[in-house]
């Protein structure tokens, strides 16, 4: 996939107002900013460094970078984009210092990955090649309580924890933090098509984990 990254937004009216409050030294505004971006920053950092602990250090260092740059920030990108760029720069530097063998280029999806085991579909010699051998379950018939159980949430969280770093970051940004695809593209420096492939693989793996859980 080679399409250009999505067009970046400039700072929104809300962000311009928030910036004014920050520059005036409003602590509540700063806390709100930290609360809003902390989880996403952590998810982004984790795509570039090897451990959660290092990612936490990256995020702390990034906040110091944000404070340092706040006066000079001109709003040519959104505040969120600018903050994530600071995270990425620090995370990359840390990644190099950690001598991580994985190059950044590898945040783009690699190889093939089947969403569902291929042997669940009929083979090419069959009368209906590519059709399900047995249908997946209808989760609409599961009791609502089962879907909302803490156990179910735990299965999803564990599955996310086990994902390859780039997939974990994408599903966390998109489905936990509620980021848009453009934010993922900017943070991971991948095309829109590639962020969708990473999201697809991540969601497919979490679905498979939930299926194993529900089917027992």
């Amino acid at each position, binding site marked *: 996939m080679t399409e250009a990254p999505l067009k970046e937004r400039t700072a929104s009216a809300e962000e311009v107002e928030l910036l004014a409050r920050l520059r005036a*030294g409003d*602590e509540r505004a*700063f*806390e709100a900013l*930290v*609360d809003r971006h*902390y*989880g996403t920053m*952590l*998810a982004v950092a984790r795509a570039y460094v090897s451990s959660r602990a290092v990612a*936490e250090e990256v995020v*702390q260092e990034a*906040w*110091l970078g944000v*404070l*340092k740059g*706040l006066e000079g920030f001109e709003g040519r990108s959104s505040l969120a984009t600018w903050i994530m760029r600071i995270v990425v720069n620090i995370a990359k530097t840390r990644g190099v210092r950690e001598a991580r063998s994985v190059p950044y280029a590898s945040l783009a999806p690699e190889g093939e990955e*089947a*969403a*569902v085991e*291929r042997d669940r*579909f009929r083979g090419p010699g069959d009368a209906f*090649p*590519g*059709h*399900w051998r047995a*249908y*997946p*379950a*209808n*989760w*609409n018939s599961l009791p609502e309580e089962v*879907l*909302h159980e803490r156990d*179910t*949430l735990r299965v*999803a*969280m564990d599955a*996310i924890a086990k994902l390859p770093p780039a997939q974990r970051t994408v*599903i966390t940004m998109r*489905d*936990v*933090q*509620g980021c848009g*695809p453009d934010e993922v593209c900017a943070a991971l420096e991948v095309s*829109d098509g590639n962020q*969708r492939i990473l*999201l*697809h693989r991540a*969601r*497919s793996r*979490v*679905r498979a984990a*939930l*299926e194993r859980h529900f089917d027992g």
Partner: protein
Amino acid sequence: MAESHDHVSCSEVVELVTDYVERALPPDEAALFEQHLNFCDGCAWYVDQIRTTVDTVGRIEPEEVPPDVRSQLLAAFRDWKRS
């Protein structure tokens, strides 16, 4: 991505589902995809499983700022304000 232009198989549906729910399929492919769901319960349930997965992941609490990190950051903000 489909093998032919007039047909989507179940094994293709499971690979196209994210493009479909993200509204990234070209209109003609989206139409074929929906046509398939209309006659295939298995794939309709599969797409529903993916939507349920997204909903479930959406209920995971976002990471909260640990209290010690919060106080360190606030201290940094106060220093910054003074400088």
